[in-house]
C-alpha cells in the first residue's frame, strides 16, 4: 500500500515537472471537440489552426515571435473543457485562447476566461455566447439567430406562411429551435409543429408524418451531424413535396453526400466560403475565401464552413496582436474589439463594444442544392 | 412441556408438484426434534417454509403460539428462529468474528447515522456485541480463529461457524440443516456434543440430518417424511421399530442412509 502511495506521489512530481515551454513564443491555446459527437466541427477546426500556424511561422511569425499552438481534445464534454481551459491558462500560460467547437463547452469556460482576464474567441454557434456581451469573450461563427432571420426572409419571399419545425435535441438544435420560435411571429410565420430527434436517432419518419399532418408550407430543420441528412431523406421517402430548409449546421459537402438525391432543392443559409468559385469577382471576400479553400482542400479534402470559423478566429487574434504590438492580454482584447473591416472566411467583421461578433446578415448567403452542388439564391 | 412450533396441513407446491403435502406436526420446547427421510423428502423445503424463505401454498405455521405465515425471514429470525444451511451460507468476504457479529445484528439498535458518525453510543454497542459474538465463538470452539478470513476455514469449522453465527441471534429455536454432512467422524461427534450443549442452554433444536447415529443419539423425537408427506413421528426407539419407516427406507435401495447403523 505504501509503495503505491509513493508511486502516486512520484507520478505527481513527474507530471508537474513537464512544465517547460519557450517563453519567447506567442502561445495560442485551443480546446476543440476533435473526437466525439461534434468531431465534424473540431476536426476541420484543428486542421485549419495547425495549417495556418505553420504558415504564419514559415512567413516569420507575428511581431517577431513564433506562434505555438497548444491543443486539447474535449470530445465536446464541458467538464473536460473547463479543466483544459484552466490548464491552458494556468499551466501552459497561453496568451490567447481560440477554441471550443460547441456552445456547451464555450459556455462552460466563460466564467474561467472572464476571471483569468484572457481573450477568448469561440468557434461555437449559440447567440448566448455574446448576448449579453462578456468583456473577454468573442466569437466568429454566425449566430443561430442570424440563420433563423435569413431563412425567414427567404420564406417571406417565397410566400411561405406555415412552417413545420424539427430540431436536434443537442445544444445547436435546441438553441436554434428557441430562436425560431421567438422570431417567427416577427416575420408573420406560424410554427405548425415543433418536433425533435436525438443525436443518434436513426429514423425520423414518425416525427415527419406528424409534421405532415399539420399541413405546413415548408419544413425547417435545425441540427447538425447525421440527423439533418436523415431528415432530408425521410421527408422525400414519405413523399412530402414541401420545400425543405436546413440551418448553417449542415454547411458541408458531407451533408449532400449523405442525403444524396433527396438533398436536391434544399435551401440553407451559409457563409460565402461554400460557393467561393461562384462568387462574382468583385466580391470583397473572394480572394481570402479562395485562398483558404484551395490551401485546405490541397491538404485535407472538401472544405466546410466550420474550418473557416477557426481561420477567422486565429486571424482575428493574430491581427489584434500585430496591431497591439504586444501579447499583453488587455491590449490584445481591446484590439480584437476594435476589429474593423476584417475580411474573413465567414464574412466581413466589424466588432464593437456592443457586438463581439461583428457580422451582419449579409455575411450569410442563401444557398440551394442543385445537381449535388451549392448554388446561390438571389 | 408445551407446544412450541407447530404446523397444520402445510403444503408447498412448485409448478403443480407438491414438495410438502398436508404436513402437520408439533415440537416441544427445549427438545431436539429431528426430521429424517430419504433424499427429496422435502426436508430442506420444510426449513425454507419455517424460516419464511418460501411462502406456503396453504396451511398454518405457529411459533410460540402465534402464526408466522407470510412473515419475511428477518422477522422470523427476530421472533427467535434461526438456522444453519446445508451448504453453508457463510459470508466468505468477512472474518470469522465478523460473520458472528452479523448474527448479533438484531440485538443492536444504532442506525446509519450514528454508525456513520461513530457516535459513543454506537461504539459502546459495538463493544457489547463483540463480546457476545466472542462468547458464541468460544462456545463453538472457534475463538482462536476469530480474526481469520472465513474463506480460509476448513469445512468442519465453517459448519461450526454457522452454528456460532446462528446462536448470536439468540434464538429460541435453532434449525440445523445437515450439520454433519461432509464432516469426518471426530468432527461429527464434536457436532453432536455441540448440539447437546445448545439444548442445555435451553434452546430448542430442530435437526435435519442423514447421519442416523447422530440423529438417534441427540434426538428426543423424530419426524419421518416421505415424498413431502408425513410418514411417522415418535421417539428414536419407536421410529426404529416402525414398519412403514423400514419399508420406505428399504424401498429406496441400499445407497441410502442405513437406519440401523
Amino acid at each position, binding site marked *: 500500500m505504501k509503495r503505491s502511495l509513493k508511486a502516486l506521489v512520484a507520478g505527481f512530481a513527474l507530471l*508537474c515537472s513537464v512544465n517547460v515551454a519557450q517563453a519567447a513564443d506567442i502561445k495560442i491555446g485551443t480546446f476543440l471537440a476533435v473526437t466525439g459527437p461534434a468531431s465534424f466541427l473540431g476536426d476541420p477546426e484543428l486542421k485549419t489552426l495547425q495549417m495556418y500556424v505553420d504558415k504564419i511561422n514559415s512567413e516569420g511569425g507575428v511581431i517577431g515571435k513564433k506562434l505555438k499552438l497548444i491543443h486539447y481534445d474535449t470530445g465536446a464534454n464541458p467538464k473536460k473543457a473547463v479543466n483544459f481551459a484552466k490548464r491552458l491558462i494556468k499551466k501552459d500560460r497561453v496568451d490567447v485562447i481560440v477554441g471550443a467547437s460547441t456552445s456547451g463547452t464555450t459556455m462552460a469556460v466563460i466564467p474561467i476566461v472572464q476571471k483569468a482576464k484572457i481573450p477568448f474567441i469561440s468557434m461555437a454557434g449559440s447567440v448566448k455566447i455574446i448576448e449579453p456581451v462578456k468583456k473577454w469573450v468573442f466569437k466568429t461563427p454566425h449566430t443561430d439567430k442570424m440563420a433563423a432571420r435569413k431563412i425567414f426572409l427567404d420564406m417571406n419571399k417565397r410566400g411561405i406562411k406555415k412552417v413545420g419545425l424539427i430540431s436536434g435535441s443537442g445544444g445547436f438544435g435546441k438553441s436554434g429551435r428557441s430562436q425560431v420560435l421567438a422570431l417567427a411571429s416577427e416575420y408573420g410565420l406560424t410554427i405548425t409543429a415543433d418536433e425533435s430527434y436525438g443525436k443518434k436517432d436513426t429514423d425520423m419518419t414518425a416525427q415527419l408524418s406528424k409534421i405532415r399532418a399539420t399541413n405546413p408550407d415548408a419544413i425547417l430543420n435545425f441540427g447538425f451531424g447525421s440527423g439533418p441528412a436523415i431528415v432530408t431523406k425521410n421527408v422525400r421517402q414519405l413523399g412530402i413535396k414541401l420545400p425543405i430548409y436546413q440551418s448553417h449546421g449542415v454547411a458541408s459537402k458531407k451533408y449532400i453526400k449523405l442525403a444524396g438525391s433527396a438533398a436536391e432543392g434544399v435551401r440553407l443559409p451559409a457563409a460565402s466560403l461554400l460557393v467561393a468559385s461562384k462568387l462574382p469577382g468583385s466580391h470583397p471576400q473572394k480572394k481570402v475565401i479562395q485562398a483558404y479553400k484551395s490551401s485546405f482542400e490541397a491538404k485535407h479534402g472538401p472544405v466546410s464552413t466550420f474550418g473557416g470559423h477557426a481561420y477567422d478566429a486565429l486571424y482575428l487574434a493574430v491581427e489584434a496582436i500585430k496591431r497591439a504590438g504586444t501579447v499583453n492580454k488587455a491590449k490584445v482584447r481591446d484590439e480584437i474589439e476594435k476589429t474593423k473591416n476584417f475580411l474573413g472566411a465567414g464574412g466581413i467583421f466589424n466588432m464593437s463594444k456592443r457586438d463581439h461578433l461583428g457580422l451582419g446578415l449579409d455575411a450569410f448567403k442563401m444557398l440551394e442544392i442543385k445537381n449535388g452542388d451549392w448554388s446561390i439564391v438571389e | 412441556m408445551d407446544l412450541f412450533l407447530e404446523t397444520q396441513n402445510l403444503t408447498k407446491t412448485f409448478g403443480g408438484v407438491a414438495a410438502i403435502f398436508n404436513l402437520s406436526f408439533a415440537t416441544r420446547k427445549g427438545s431436539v426434534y429431528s426430521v429424517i427421510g430419504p433424499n427429496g423428502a422435502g426436508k430442506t423445503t420444510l426449513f425454507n417454509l419455517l424460516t419464511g424463505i418460501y411462502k406456503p401454498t396453504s396451511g398454518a405455521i405457529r411459533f410460540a403460539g402465534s402464526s408466522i405465515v407470510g412473515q419475511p425471514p428477518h422477522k422470523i429470525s427476530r421472533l427467535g428462529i434461526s438456522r444453519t444451511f446445508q451448504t453453508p451460507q457463510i459470508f466468505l468476504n468477512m472474518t470469522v468474528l465478523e460473520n458472528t457479529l452479523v448474527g448479533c445484528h438484531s440485538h443492536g439498535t444504532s442506525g446509519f447515522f450514528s454508525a456513520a458518525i461513530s457516535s459513543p453510543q454506537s461504539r459502546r454497542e459495538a463493544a457489547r456485541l463483540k463480546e457476545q459474538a466472542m462468547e458464541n465463538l468460544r462456545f463453538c470452539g472457534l475463538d482462536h480463529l476469530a480474526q481469520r478470513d472465513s474463506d480460509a476455514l476448513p469445512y468442519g469449522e465453517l459448519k461450526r461457524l454457522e452454528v456460532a453465527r446462528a446462536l448470536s441471534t439468540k434464538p429460541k429455536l435453532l434449525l440445523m440443516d445437515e450439520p454433519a454432512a461432509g464432516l469426518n467422524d471426530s468432527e461429527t461427534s464434536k457436532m453432536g456434543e455441540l448440539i447437546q450443549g445448545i439444548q442445555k442452554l435451553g434452546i430448542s433444536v430442530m435437526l435435519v440430518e442423514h447421519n442416523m447415529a447422530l440423529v438417534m443419539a441427540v434426538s428426543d423425537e423424530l419426524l419421518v417424511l416421505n415424498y413431502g408427506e408425513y410418514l411417522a413421528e415418535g421417539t428414536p426407539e419407536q421410529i426404529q421399530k416402525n414398519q412403514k419407516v423400514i419399508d420406505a427406507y428399504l424401498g429406496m435401495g441400499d445407497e441410502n442412509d442405513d437406519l440401523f447403523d
Partner: protein
Amino acid sequence: MNRYRGFFVLALIIIIAPIIFPDSYFVTVVGVTIALNALVAVGLNLLMGYTGQISLGHAAFFGIGAYSSGLLTTMFSWNPWFALLMGLLVTWLVAEIIARPILRLKGHYLAMATLGFGIIINILMVQPTHITGGPDGLSDIPVLNILGWDIDSDIRWYIVANGALLLGVWLALNLINSRIGLALRAVHGSEVGAQMMGVDIERIKIRIFVVSALFAAFAGSLFAHQQAFISPDSFSFHFSIELVVMVVLGGMASNYGPIFGAAVLTMLPETLVVFEDYEVLILGAIMMGIMIFLPQGLWVGLSQKIKPLFLNKATSSVESVGG
C-alpha cells in the same frame, strides 16, 4: 486507531501535495476534479463494493445535486447552502422512491434498470429547456461562501473539495466498520444468510442506495458551484459508466480503491492527451488490461502483488535464522 490509519495517510497526501507543488495545474485543478469524482466513487462503492448492488445510473444523482443547486441559486436566488440541502432532500426522495422497485432486481437486470433511470433523468435535464436551460446548460451559478470566505480560487476549491472527500471517507469508514456495515457486507456475501441473521435486506439495500445517492448529490452540488456552469453532458450515461469504472478499476470493497481509481481515471485523459487520436484506443486497452490481469482492481491487485515481495524476504530471513 487502526481503522483510521489509511485515512490519515490520505489526509497527509492531500495536505502535502499543494505544499510541494504550489499552484500546479495537476494538484489544484485536476485535484479538485479527482476529489469530487472520488467522493461519488466512495459512495458508490458502499453500494457496489460492499453491498454488491450495481448502479449504472449514479451520474443522475450527481446531476440532481448539481441541478438543484444550479437552479435554486440562479432562478430563485437561494442561498447556496439551502440549495445544497434542498438538493440532498430531493435526491433522498427520488432515491427512496425508485430504490424499492429497482433493488428487487438483481445482476444485469439491476444494471439495466439503473442505466435506464440515469438516461431518463438526463432527458429530463435536456428537454424542459425553459427550466433547465436545455443542452446549453445553466450559467452564472454563484460562488459558494463558507463563513464569509468566498470559494473562488482553485486552491480554495482544492481545500473544500478535498475536505468534503475526507468527510465522506470518514463517514464511509465508520459506517463500514459498524453493525450496519457488517450487515451490508453480509448481504453481499449471502442474501439468505443475512436474512436469517435478522437483517432486513430490502430495507438495508434501500438505505445504502439512498446514502450512496446522497454522496453523489453532495459532490454534484459542489461541482455546480465549482464549475459555475452545468449542462446535461456532464451527467450522461458516460459519466455513470466512468464512475463504475473508477470503483472497479481502483478496487471494490476497499475504501481507498475507489479514490485511487478516481485519481487514475481522472488523470488518464489528462496525460493521454499527448496521444491525440490514439487516446480512445489506449483508454480502452488499459481498462481491459487491468480487469483481465488485476480483476480485483488496481489497489487490491497491486498491493497483493507487492506484498509477497516483502513477505518472501521476511519468511526467508526467518528460515535462515531457523536453519
